[in-house]
């Protein structure tokens, strides 16, 4: 039975049954025969020379199977960075070795020094406490803004702690734009450092198989093939085909599980030496210290406008904290994924952006939901709103004057937007948010002694990462295509293998909808397999809102090949020419006749080829496809936030939040809304609650939920979400753009614009993120003193 109209329907997620009934299989659920357990000894100091690592007492502790230190692993490679950034002066970024286990020095609090393996976790813990490390503590570099003048080098190769000074855009054209500006808005601000906090902590379980000298690694990861490639080719020197990486059910990633980390690499290496499967699951306190963090920019930005409020130029200088080592994508997040987004939705003719990437004695910083694009959006949308306030122009009107209105549009920072309709999302958001009723609500708040404010954010992101040739020209050391395989079984049931990885996104549902509709078969006749290098032919994984746009397209291409082959089989059976066969609703039909074969009949024929064109066609019905996108996709929309601020305490309450988005075509509206809701929650977390703070010695002050505030249900308003029919992407067959990061990208500036709007009558110009009660009160008090 065909299933028309599956695409576009809010079908309940097929994976939820197992998640909601406790049947999910996460890495920590995998226990192997003869399982052993690992604990890492971590540095309590942010910066220290290792005089000695003494393991003899620990090695004698009960149950200990082995202790591995940096010395043991000194011969293996460092953890690689996947993106080469070239500085303005033409020199490549500094790439000091990122050792799996610290060798001569530790460079951040929490860096792994030794791996202790024992029969039980408790024995491993007890032995780890007996490892004696003799530290020569050094001064630490902990502050982003002053890292270049710290007087202490994190790495010898970078005496001033500068990894690269990268730029994009046209500096002289931008300077010229400022020279003729009628008004310049200037802001300095911090994009606050965040700690990812997926609900499932990182985990790994590695086993060496003596029979064929191969390995299996179970790991909580977003891209198992990339994990394998980086680990085998760049670090351990193992044959790629001898390592199987399985990323089973994964409980959230948000970017933090893209990267090749030290822990799983050490486990794989040690599993052969110790000859036992070794399992490690991060404690939450380890996650705080040693997962890659996000954001952490210090920026000065200037926006030049003419007398009519038209943007003339945008000039940006950012210092981005990279942490102690370059993580897998650490270098491209604050550059390629940031500077190129600074046009936003606006036809700003000249943009120049310079980014200094600095090393510090803090955990590595890498992609976190949005990855560079939230930082760019925050900058653009705060600047635009501030300019509107300074010029006393309605902030929606100022945006309208500057919207890009004809497509394709090439920005001054290197991207070409294929399509969009920014007026549509703005206009609808203004309606949904009842902006007309704001003045009355503000008056009502004032009667309660509260200050009400409203803030907009018209965001744009580049998703569907990425055209490989473009990425390669920009320094990527990997391709960014995706692979898919469609395996039709003899009964016409279908298993789809995708290189994308689902860790909350609902791919098993969304991809099934696409395949079932294209093949005209039942939704339940399709299963999606992902996350295993032994099953899936290849994959680049899930990040950058790419899975449907890139991974889904690869699947569609494979489906198209299935249909093309099916037509040839049908033509043979129906004694017609290939060109006369039409396929729709699960039936192959001779055009203009009632002669037809069902999809299941063709599948059976392919596997029981008694009457089959064997001279022209192979039996079987199984197709692969690789898809490399020709452009990024450009989701966009408008977020509107309304807050009430209590000036006596600084407490901010988000009263209402509206998100109106254009994601192109939508396969499952419920899943899309869930992505927006979740993304907005994370964005509100950044704006109001989350602050990763190190002290001057590089100690993590916000190292637990006692001090790091994650958003909870009662911190959040009901978020009104509407996805417009929108402007379908012009260069992928599904017309989809991606929705996974939009909520986290668009929302922080809307919140902060609302808070600063509320506080403007008190003379407050800006409040830092997160706008905690203390931060808001401090800003109010500072303004009162002026």
């Amino acid at each position, binding site marked *: 039975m065909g299933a028309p109209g599956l695409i576009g329907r809010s079908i309940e997620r097929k994976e939820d049954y197992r998640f909601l009934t406790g049947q999910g299989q996460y890495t920590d659920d995998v226990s192997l025969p003869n399982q052993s357990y690992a604990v890492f000894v971590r540095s309590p100091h942010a910066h220290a020379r290792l005089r000695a690592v003494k393991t003899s007492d620990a090695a004698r502790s009960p149950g200990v199977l082995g202790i591995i230190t940096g010395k043991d692993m000194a011969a293996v490679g460092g953890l690689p960075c996947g993106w080469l950034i070239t500085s303005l002066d033409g020199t490549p970024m500094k790439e000091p070795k990122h050792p799996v286990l610290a060798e001569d020095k530790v460079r951040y609090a929490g860096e792994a020094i030794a791996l202790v393996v024992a029969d039980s976790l408790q024995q491993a813990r007890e032995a780890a406490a007996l490892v004696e490390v003799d530290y020569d503590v050094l001064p630490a570099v902990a502050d982003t803004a002053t890292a270049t003048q710290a007087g202490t080098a994190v790495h010898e190769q970078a005496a001033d702690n500068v990894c690269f000074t990268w730029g994009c855009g046209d500096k002289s054209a931008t300077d010229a734009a400022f020279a003729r500006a009628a008004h310049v808005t200037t802001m300095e601000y911090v994009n606050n450092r965040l700690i990812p906090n997926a609900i499932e902590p990182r985990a790994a379980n590695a086993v060496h198989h003596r029979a064929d000298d191969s390995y299996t690694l179970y790991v909580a990861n977003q891209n198992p093939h990339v994990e394998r490639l980086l680990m085998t080719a760049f670090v351990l020197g193992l044959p790629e085909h001898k390592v199987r990486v399985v990323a089973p059910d994964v409980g959230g990633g948000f970017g933090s599980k893209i990267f090749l980390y030290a822990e799983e690499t050490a486990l794989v290496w040690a599993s052969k030496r110790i000859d036992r499967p070794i399992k490690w699951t991060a404690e939450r306190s380890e996650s705080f210290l040693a997962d890659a963090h996000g954001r952490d920019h210090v920026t000065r930005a200037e926006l030049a406008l003419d007398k009519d409020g038209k943007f003339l130029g945008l000039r940006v200088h950012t210092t981005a904290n990279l942490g102690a080592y370059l993580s897998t994508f650490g270098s491209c997040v604050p550059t390629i994924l940031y500077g190129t987004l600074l046009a936003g939705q606006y036809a700003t003719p000249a943009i120049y952006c310079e980014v200094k990437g600095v090393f510090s004695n803090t955990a590595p910083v890498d992609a976190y939901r949005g990855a560079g694009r939230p930082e760019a959006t925050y900058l653009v949308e705060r600047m635009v709103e501030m300019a509107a306030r300074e010029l006393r122009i309605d902030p929606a009107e100022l945006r309208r004057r500057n919207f890009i209105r004809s497509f394709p549009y090439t920005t001054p920072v290197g991207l070409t937007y294929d399509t969009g309709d920014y007026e549509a999302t703005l206009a609808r958001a203004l309606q949904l948010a009842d902006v007309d009723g704001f003045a009355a609500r503000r008056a009502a708040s004032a009667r309660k002694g509260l200050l009400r404010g409203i803030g907009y954010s018209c965001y744009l992101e580049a998703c569907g990462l990425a055209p490989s040739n473009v990425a390669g020209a920009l320094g990527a050391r990997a391709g960014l295509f995706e692979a898919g395989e469609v395996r039709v079984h003899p009964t016409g049931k279908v298993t789809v293998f995708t290189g994308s990885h689902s860790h909350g996104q609902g791919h098993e549902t969304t991809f099934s909808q696409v395949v079932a509709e294209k093949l005209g078969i039942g939704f339940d006749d399709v299963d999606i397999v992902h996350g295993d290098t032994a099953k899936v032919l290849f994959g680049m994984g899930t990040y950058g809102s790419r899975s449907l746009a890139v991974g889904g397209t690869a699947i569609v291409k494979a489906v198209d090949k299935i249909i093309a082959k099916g037509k040839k089989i049908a033509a043979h059976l129906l004694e017609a020419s290939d060109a006369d066969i039409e396929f729709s609703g699960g039936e192959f039909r001779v055009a203009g006749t009632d002669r037809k074969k069902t999809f299941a009949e063709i599948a059976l024929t392919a596997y029981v080829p008694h009457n089959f064109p064997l001279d022209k066609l192979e039996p079987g019905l199984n197709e692969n496809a690789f898809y490399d996108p020709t452009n990024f996709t450009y989701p966009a929309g408008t977020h509107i936030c309304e807050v009430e601020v209590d000036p006596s*305490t600084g407490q901010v309450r988000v009263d209402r939040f509206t998100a109106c988005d254009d994601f192109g075509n939508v396969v499952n509206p419920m899943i899309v809304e869930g992505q927006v809701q979740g993304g907005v929650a994370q964005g509100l977390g950044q704006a109001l609650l989350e602050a990763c703070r190190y002290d001057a010695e590089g100690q993590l002050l916000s190292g637990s939920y006692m*001090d*790091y505030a994650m958003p909870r249900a009662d911190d959040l308003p009901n978020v009104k979400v509407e996805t417009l029919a929108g402007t379908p992407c012009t260069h992928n067959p599904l017309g989809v753009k991606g929705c996974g990061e939009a909520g986290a990208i668009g929302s922080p500036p809307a919140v902060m614009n609302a808070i600063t709007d509320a506080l403007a009558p008190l003379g407050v110009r800006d409040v830092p993120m997160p706008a*905690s009660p203390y931060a808001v009160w401090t800003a109010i008090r500072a303004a009162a003193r002026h």
Partner: protein
Amino acid sequence: METQYHRPSSVAEAAKLLGGDARLLAGGQSLVAAMKLGLASPSALVDLRGISGLDGIRTEAARVTIGAMATHASVAASRDVARAIPALAQLAAGIGDRQVRSCGTIGGSLANNDPAACYPAAVLGLGATIQTDKRQIPADDFFLGLFETALRPEEIITAVHFPIPERSAYEKFRQPASRFSIVGVMVAKTGANVRVAVTGAGSCVFRSRELEAALTRKFAPESCDGVQVDAKGLNSDLHGSAEYRAHLIPVLAKRAVARALG
């Protein structure tokens, strides 16, 4: 490091098991977490949950007596408490989360004397008396400093006696992450006597004499306006400076008075 576990069936038996590094286990909401983090490693745990009769709630004409092992959830749900001292029920309902309230006990909270805990503010603000297996300790003598109380090493809290005030209310301003108090203020009025206890702001719960003086003159919200609380000695951390806490104390006291009168 081995930890012995005991589950006595009487207070007397429990007292005999104390000594050395043995610790009493009540609801375990602080101690067990500290043990998991390696911050506490007692030689023995003496679990009070096997002793019957320690978790009762009893109302008399002028006072409410709450057994040391009464959980926050049971105090929050008690109709007797809600009728006699609604502020106390409301305070208990705002401690931690549902799981914490179902396990955590009033006796455990008081013996721990966390500087940001709610119950110390209730006990000091309402002028309660701590009943132990050996004696009665007035609230004003009980809280000595950071995690420090007047309890002797082998002394066990068995109950807390709360005098019923005419009016009282508790206002808590939550730290965004832990949701402990950045500042919590308990205000209670009985006759001409006004007590104002502040938790979260200092190293230990304390009475604000400035606010008590102002509110004794007139028990009205506006009496708190303009009262200056000295920031000296108050806590400063990621979530608020001493100045911020000093600022919040009269703000919250004002709200508490309004609620007490409302």
